[in-house]
């Protein structure tokens, strides 16, 4: 039921239990998933692992999601970034899109919606 074309995902969120559950779900959906719990670790991982889409939490201790996004886009403009925000406000999401994010989703995420967004982001980069 869940198989689809294989994307390489980097999931970045400081909540380990969230990362663990969501990454396992994405694995079951046939994706290649890497994880990081800090912005700095995410940047290091991008140097080592080929990545199509970064799914990035906005609110993290240390290097926040928006700063991590800015640095990702500086070095890897072709990698798509989808932001996750826990706030009812859309302010961070809009700011993220201004910085180059493909889109943003509110937590808790709907897995089908997240996958649809990832597919759309891959399609968008392929068109460029």
């Amino acid at each position: 039921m869940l198989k689809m074309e294989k994307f390489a995902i980097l999931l970045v969120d400081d909540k380990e239990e969230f990362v663990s559950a969501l990454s396992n779900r994405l694995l079951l959906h046939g994706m290649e998933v890497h994880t990081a719990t800090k912005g700095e670790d995410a940047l290091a991982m991008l140097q080592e692992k080929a990545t199509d889409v970064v799914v990035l939490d906005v609110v993290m201790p240390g290097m926040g999601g928006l700063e991590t996004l800015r640095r990702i886009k500086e070095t890897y403009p072709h990698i798509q970034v989808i932001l996750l925000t826990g706030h009812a406000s859309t302010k961070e999401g809009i700011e993220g899109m201004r910085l180059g994010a493909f889109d943003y989703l509110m937590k808790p995420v709907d897995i089908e919606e997240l996958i649809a967004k990832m597919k759309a982001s891959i399609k968008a980069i392929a068109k460029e």
Partner: protein
Amino acid sequence: MKASTEDLITARHLAFVGRVTASLSHEIKNTLAIIGESSGLMGDLLDYTAPPAEWAPYPRLKTLLTTIAEQVERSVVILKRLNRFAHSMDEQLVALDLNDLLMEITNLAQRFARLREVGLETRLCSESLKMRSDPFRIQQAVFHFIEVSLKFSPKNTTITVASRRDKGAAQVIITDEAPPRAGWLKKLISTPQLTLAETEEQSDPDLAVLGLIVAKLGWSIEAEDLHPQGNRVIVTFPLENG
């Protein structure tokens, strides 16, 4: 209007409560996200590893996981309301749409109405009512009026919160089917200091404080009896482009 020291202290108190509440709601939302993803993963694992036709607990487990997902979704909706309410305390003068605020505060009041077995409906005008004002005070005012209506409304009647544009102003109209009390309302609002000091059964400190707020922020309030039974309170806010 120049804010007094007392006003500034109150504003900072509210901003503090709002900031802490918003932060807590954010933390709870993260916890819900973990619950949601964990139950989602359990569902995925069930689908992958358990042959549904051959494993008796499968349908019950699927039903339980659906219940968890629905409750997570419901909690997220409630938390969004809490978060928005908390942020209404951030600043005292912001650009806002009155209809959005009315929808939010009516949602927050729904539980109180349900407990009293009274219906609570909105009839908001279709145009946006943009203004610069104090979102917390507006919600406080409307909530108190709903509370007073609830206090006097018989079971199975309905309270309606409506809005409309009236020349250069926006109006909120709260209508109920309770016994007439317009005279008492007028007295209470027009003499807030008096009613604050009173201890009679009918005095309502919240409403008396409301009288002070209304006078200070330049809103006006009208109250009228409806026939055969009911009350209508109209709160008028100066409207400007937000």
